[in-house]
């Protein structure tokens, strides 16, 4: 212990010593030089003022659109004199004849004008460098010129993101770049509180079942999720989800090794770098954006029986006994009620028209050296399930201080407060099972407690005070100091502190339907409360040195080197209590006891530290031949002590063909770059401490008077980071109005951390080992064409395509055992109330997302029973897990999007379609709604029409079984017929075309606006998921309904 502390102190001391030494040195140099300069300046200025100095006016306009350009830096070359253009593009500056004035701004060409005695007005006409920010690649560690960059990266501007949607970044990203695959959550539908699942260029991590689902803090990352970098620091997906899109300047997706290797051990799943807006304005400026969303539940995919149809089925299935008068009377009674008009549309009961309101206010202040901006945003998203809601309040304050272009300090403080609540109505699925001839209300219009068919009225749950809320409060402060020592040499230090507190409260009052089955003996346990409490602390810092130089005008060298440190602590605990007798007692304190089933509090916690050293070397020869080399060393507390330091590297090369003489003359070829890269990155998002032995206490056992501890797992000090070798080749081109990007890639993930069976004589049956190989390969292409572009507007078409093939090359022995247990598990599922669907199995040579199902001949016309094909190719009626064969892949093989966007005189329109195909889908909802049904529930209409009923009939669905119990005696077979389990009959090809976003906007004429004192006014409207054409019909949103959103927004700048 003592030793540890000493060396930590030593480390800190040395660190600070070095820092102060370096800075002292640098400042010393600095001090000497500028002081001379200052004196000279004063003398010079004095001369100037005496002489021919005069004030000259000017204006900056966009050469293409003619619009004024504001915030352009206007500098008199060789002096400290400078200003910025105003919103109308005009400026005034003091100059002397013979001096040169330059106007420059990021994203446009810069221009210089020499002032002569005849100069009266400085008319700067700047041209958009066609893809403004795309010309720069923001990697989060350094900003690189795209032209000399060998990595594969895609930059999306904030405006572009906003053009395809305004809900959240993921929603927009889905429509813009298909390489980030954001999976549609078929279960959670449009739940405002569920974070999307995503991966880039295919998944690599095996899912062996992780974590408790009761956790709310999102502290543990999902294994296939990309790394998110917000303004240089790692953030959670949740933070990105709740980010105010108005503040986003750009989003960059780093795809290949050459681009990602700077993030070393965390980059394997891809990196998404988000930069928020940097301060531009020189004068106070206020921007307001407000939007209103309307969210409409889409229940059209449900095709349920009408009350009469349902009664027909019940009668046919002998639910009503002819010999029992009360039973058959009941049928006629129901029928009468239905004919009189009883038809409860249960699906509509828990849903509503959702709405969202968003307000974002941005205030920019300050001038010259000191500039500030403050942003406040509020987003309230009321979901389509009644009572589900997510409210985010976000405030941020940025401050930039520049001193003589040498020193820059920047600080940004961000505070987010989020409140979320889930619908007290429970799962939407419950309502799809209720019969429409059951009335939830009595004659007086009050909710009944018990439904006429038995069971508690689920609508009641919402009225008794059920409360399912969660919230978090997060505060982040990023500080950055930058010092330009000499031209080309820059030092930068950044430091980030992040603290987050989260809590969740789930209160189920004693009368909640989940306690309906509690017998009298455990009635005192009714009323449950779950309370989550979590917090996390992150400290991150880095220090980088940038050096760039040009030798003999042909060799460009750029070096970036430095290190980073990070510490991350999180802790979340859940307490389960029960026995809250009264529904008024909505607090954990009223509970009688801890939950008898859960007993002890549970939770998660983690404490990790990491260190990294990074060197990037970039070299270009005459801007034609490009070379990038990255070397990163990472160390993390998560890894085995024998393999603490993990090296990652990448080498990228590129060739700017458009700079070659044979292309140079063709002015229509603006860019033609061929690039290739190879390198390795890692993945460390797995449960911490797999390399070390963790000791647990025997909580329920004592030995005499003592308590004992034991080793819970075997250590593996040789455990390594998961490594991904990546190969990528690509072309970036802009020619003849086309913008083209093409990538071929292959990645090999090795050292996957999985459990390996060990000899039990080690004391343990398995240990974490680096095992398994997964390969992903594919192609990504992007093409856009600008039909026209002039000062009135533009029209651009774009499309993209990506495919990915995933193959497991090697799996561990433990994985085989996992497969066997999975198979045994499904083999035992013979009751339809249990999960009878597909399971995930991992085998060499197959994709990770293989669907396993038993081949089927279809429904036997003679018996109405499914005829399956067993391992020997013979027909059988018996379902056996061992007969399952790979029957499809549950992810699309190819995906992409296409669309157009254009603007004419301020009116803009943007349409995006996404498409995907080549994959399969196991239509479990169809199984559950047509074949594995209970007569007591409502089901799909096709039960009446399309299932087998008479011998000889060729039906698509088997004779429905399992009506009252899990299985039903089948007289033709002389045995019970089992529920439908994984069969190829329900494996369907999934090809989809989705008009995923339509957006229109109107940007008011600025000249007209300025007369109103406004700088900018823009109205926009969006609609997402407009129409979907699919080869299969799925009920999207089984737990939470699927919804469509229409959104209207207004942006005004003062």
């Amino acid at each position, binding site marked *: 212990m003592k030793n540890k502390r000493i060396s930590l102190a030593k480390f800190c001391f040395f660190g600070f010593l070095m820092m102060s030494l370096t800075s002292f040195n640098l400042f010393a140099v600095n001090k000497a030089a500028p002081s001379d300069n200052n004196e000279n300046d004063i003398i010079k200025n004095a001369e100037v003022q005496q002489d021919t100095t005069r004030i000259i006016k000017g204006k900056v306009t966009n050469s293409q659109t003619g619009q004024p350009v504001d915030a352009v830096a206007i500098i008199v070359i060789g002096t400290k004199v400078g200003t910025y253009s105003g919103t109308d593009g005009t400026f005034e500056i003091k100059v002397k004849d013979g001096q040169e004035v330059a106007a420059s701004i990021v994203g446009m060409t810069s221009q210089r004008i020499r002032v002569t005695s005849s100069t009266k007005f400085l008319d700067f006409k700047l041209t958009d460098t066609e893809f403004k920010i795309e010309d720069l690649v923001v990697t989060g560690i350094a900003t690189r010129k795209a032209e000399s960059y060998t990595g594969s990266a895609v930059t999306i501007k904030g405006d572009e993101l906003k053009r395809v949607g305004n809900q959240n970044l993921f929603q927009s990203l889905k429509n813009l770049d298909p390489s980030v695959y954001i999976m549609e959550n078929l279960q959670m539908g449009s739940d405002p509180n569920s974070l999307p699942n995503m991966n880039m260029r295919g998944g690599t991590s095996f899912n062996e079942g992780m974590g408790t689902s009761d956790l709310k803090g999102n502290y543990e990352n999902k294994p296939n999720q990309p790394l998110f970098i917000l303004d240089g620091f790692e953030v959670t997906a949740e933070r990105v989800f709740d980010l105010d899109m108005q503040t986003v300047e750009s989003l960059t997706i780093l795809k290949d090794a050459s681009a990602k290797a700077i993030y070393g051990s965390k980059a394997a799943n891809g990196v998404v770098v988000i930069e928020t807006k940097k301060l531009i304005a020189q004068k106070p400026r206020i921007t307001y954006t407000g939007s209103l969303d309307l969210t409409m539940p889409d229940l059209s995919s449900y095709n349920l029986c009408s009350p009469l149809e349902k009664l027909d089925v019940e009668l046919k299935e002998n639910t009503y006994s002819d010999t029992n008068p009360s039973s058959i009377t009941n049928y006629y009674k129901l029928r009468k009620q239905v004919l009189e008009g009883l038809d409860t549309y249960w699906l509509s009961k828990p849903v509503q028209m959702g709405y969202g309101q968003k307000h974002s206010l941005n205030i920019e202040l300050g001038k010259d050296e000191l500039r500030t901006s403050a942003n406040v945003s509020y987003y309230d998203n009321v979901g389509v399930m009644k009572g589900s809601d997510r409210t985010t309040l976000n405030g941020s304050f940025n401050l930039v201080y520049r001193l003589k272009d040498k020193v820059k300090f920047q600080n940004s403080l961000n505070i987010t407060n989020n409140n979320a609540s889930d619908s007290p109505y429970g799962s939407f699925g419950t309502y799809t099972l209720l019969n429409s001839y059951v009335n939830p209300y009595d004659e007086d219009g009050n909710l009944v407690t018990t439904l006429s068919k038995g069971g508690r009225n689920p609508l009641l749950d919402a009225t008794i005070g059920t409360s399912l809320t969660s919230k978090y409060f997060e505060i982040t402060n990023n500080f950055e100091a930058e010092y330009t020592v000499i031209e080309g040499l820059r030092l930068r230090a950044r430091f980030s502190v992040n603290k987050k507190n989260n809590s969740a409260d789930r209160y189920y009052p004693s009368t909640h339907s989940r306690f309906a089955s509690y017998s009298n003996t455990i009635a005192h346990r009714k009323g449950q409360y779950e309370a989550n409490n979590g917090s996390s602390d992150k400290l991150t810092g880095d220090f980088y040195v940038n050096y760039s130089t040009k030798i003999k005008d042909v060799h460009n060298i750029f070096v970036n080197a430095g290190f980073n440190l990070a510490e991350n602590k999180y802790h979340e605990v859940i307490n389960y209590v029960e026995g809250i007798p009264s529904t008024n007692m909505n607090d954990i304190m009223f509970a009688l006891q801890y939950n008898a089933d859960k007993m002890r509090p549970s939770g998660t916690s983690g404490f990790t530290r990491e260190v990294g050293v990074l060197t990037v070397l970039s070299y270009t020869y005459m801007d034609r031949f490009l070379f990038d080399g990255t070397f990163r060393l990472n160390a993390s507390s998560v890894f085995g002590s024998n393999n603490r330091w993990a090296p990652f590297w990448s080498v990228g090369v590129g060739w700017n063909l458009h700079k070659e003489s044979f292309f140079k003359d063709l002015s229509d070829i603006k860019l033609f770059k061929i690039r290739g890269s190879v390198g390795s990155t890692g993945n460390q998002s797995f449960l911490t401490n797999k390399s070390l032995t963790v000791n647990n206490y025997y909580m329920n056992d004592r030995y005499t008077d003592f308590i004992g501890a034991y080793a819970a797992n075997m250590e593996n000090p040789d455990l390594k980071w998961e490594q991904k070798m990546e190969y990528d080749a690509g072309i970036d081109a802009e020619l003849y109005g086309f913008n083209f990007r093409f990538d071929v890639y292959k990645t090999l993930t090795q050292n996957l951390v999985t459990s390996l069976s060990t000899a039990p*004589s*080690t*004391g343990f049956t398995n240990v974490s080992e680096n095992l398994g190989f997964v390969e992903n390969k594919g192609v990504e292409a992007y093409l856009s064409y600008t039909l026209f572009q002039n000062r009135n507007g533009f029209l651009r078409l774009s499309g993209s395509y990506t495919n990915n093939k995933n193959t497991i090359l090697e799996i561990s022995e433990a994985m085989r055992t996992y497969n066997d247990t999975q198979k045994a598990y499904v083999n035992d599922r013979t009751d339809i109330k249990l999960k009878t669907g597909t399971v995930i199995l991992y085998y060499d040579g197959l994709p990770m997302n293989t669907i396993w199902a038993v081949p089927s001949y279809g429904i036997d016309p003679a018996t109405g029973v499914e005829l399956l094909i067993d391992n020997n190719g013979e027909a059988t009626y018996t379902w056996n897990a061992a007969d399952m064969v790979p029957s499809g892949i549950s992810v699309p093989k190819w995906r992409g999007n296409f669309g157009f966007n254009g603007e004419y005189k301020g009116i803009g329109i943007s349409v995006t379609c996404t498409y995907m195909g080549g994959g399969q889908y196991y239509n479990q909802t169809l199984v559950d709604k047509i074949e594995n049904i209970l007569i007591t529930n409502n089901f799909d209409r096709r039960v009446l029409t399309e299932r087998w009923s008479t011998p000889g009939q060729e039906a698509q669905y088997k004779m429905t079984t399992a009506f009252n119990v899990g299985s039903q005696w089948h007289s033709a077979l002389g045995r019970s017929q089992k529920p439908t389990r994984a069969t190829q009959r329900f494996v369907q090809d999934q090809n989809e075309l989705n008009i995923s976003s339509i957006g229109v906007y109107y940007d008011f004429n600025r000249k007209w606006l300025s007369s109103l004192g406004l700088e900018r006014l823009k109205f926009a409207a969006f609609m997402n998921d407009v129409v979907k054409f699919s080869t299969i019909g799925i009920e999207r949103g089984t737990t939470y309904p699927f919804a469509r959103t229409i959104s209207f927004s207004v942006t005004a700048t003062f």
Partner: protein
Amino acid sequence: MKAKLPIILLIFSLIITSSCENWLNVSSKTDIVSEEMFSDITGFNDAVVGVYVKMAKPELYAQEMTWRTVEFLSHQYAEVAGAPDLNVPKFLWETAPLPSKRETMWLGMYNAIANVNQILKYQEQNRDVFKSDSFTDSLIKGEMLALRAFLHFDVMRLFGKGNLENRPELRSAMTIPYVTDFTRIATPQRSYTATLALMKQDIQQAIQYLECDPCRTNSSEFSTTSMSSRRFRMNYWAAKAVYARILMWEGTTESKELALAQALEIIGNSRSGGIGTGNGAYYSWTPSSSVNQTYWYTSDLSFTQEHLFTLWVEKFIDIQKGPTDSRSWFDCASPSNQYSVVYLTDARRNIIYEEGTGMFDSDWRANKCLWAAGASLRNWTIAKFYNVADMGTNFSKRMPMIRVTEMYYIAAECFLAKGDRTSAVACLNKVRNQRNIPTSLNLSASLSVEDIRNEITKEYLKEFVAEGQLFFYYKRLGFSTILDYSGAMTDSEYQMPMPDSEMINGGIRVN
């Protein structure tokens, strides 16, 4: 500036690499990693207790390794048709439930060993912890080494071969892996000689470390009831006894000589008028008053004062409950309704306690430790382990690992091997008298060697009901036939095969 840059970076990297190792050694509060666990004495003590908790689990000595699987193998219990363990006494190693039992017992034993090894590893590594407490240091080391020998010895007694005495060719054969490291890498198998040597080395060292054991001199430290009693730990006397057991298994003349020395030291060596007439220095014989309490369940029927090492089984009542109903395995009132039951048949009791002799009526083990239940009262309940709720904790919740009487039997066997029939008989008579068999029925020193050997076997049958020792006794001496089993006893009956997972994952393994 340009020249300085690489130097600065180099220095930075040097600082980082040299100081990071410690800075990076962190883990979450709820994951107590070993380095942290073993950073103070409390952590060591908790881990030591953890080993005993593990040993007192049902897959080990609270059930399988004692009164259930191992005892079923000795054919001590009645056969109940439809019983879950019916295949066990048939030695059908590949038929349920044995394959899974072999796995769990093997894994459980080695898991306990792994925990022992982890403690020993960190004790070696974190010497600072014990700087000011050499007593605890020595005690933990002694206990752990002795337990490592003890646990391996039981794995070998079950999964290895017996009768080494008469089969010297076996000594170079491979036996179970003797694991001395806490590592994920499987330990290779060694020969019986090499394995026994490691075992002896561990136990000899353990005995040396345990010389500081307070129970050697202070009988209050060997209390039967005090929760901190050394009797519930692997103590000095127990280590000695383990040594004797190992030596007997080895079976050479020299080892028997050594075994005798150990046994005699444990017995107390007060040989006036025969073997140990009085109480030992630290243990005492069970008095008649303890046995003859008002109720059977308040009486000391497992003779707790004579346990050299006994495991505290906190949940013994729960462990004794059958899988299907809540009745105890020891409740044999109506066995036809309950297949999960162990008891002695009337016939078995008559044979082992020698019906028709005076012993049958006087021996507490026949009359007090067993009581009749069931139809016509012909099922004999093993009262010494039958834990019921009404019981106090003075005599219940215990599973004896080693009894002092075993040392008398070992001594008798060794004396006999040397031809000292008088001493051998004296050893046996001492135990018999303590079990209420009158001195008038004492064995005569004029009995033949063969007869005395038979008497020793009879004692094993009588003394260790439901403790598992009988099977190991049969196996050690290579009995070709055993009581109540018609088949021949060979290695294939005696030797429980290693579990499949060990054969698959352990590298090269021979059974």
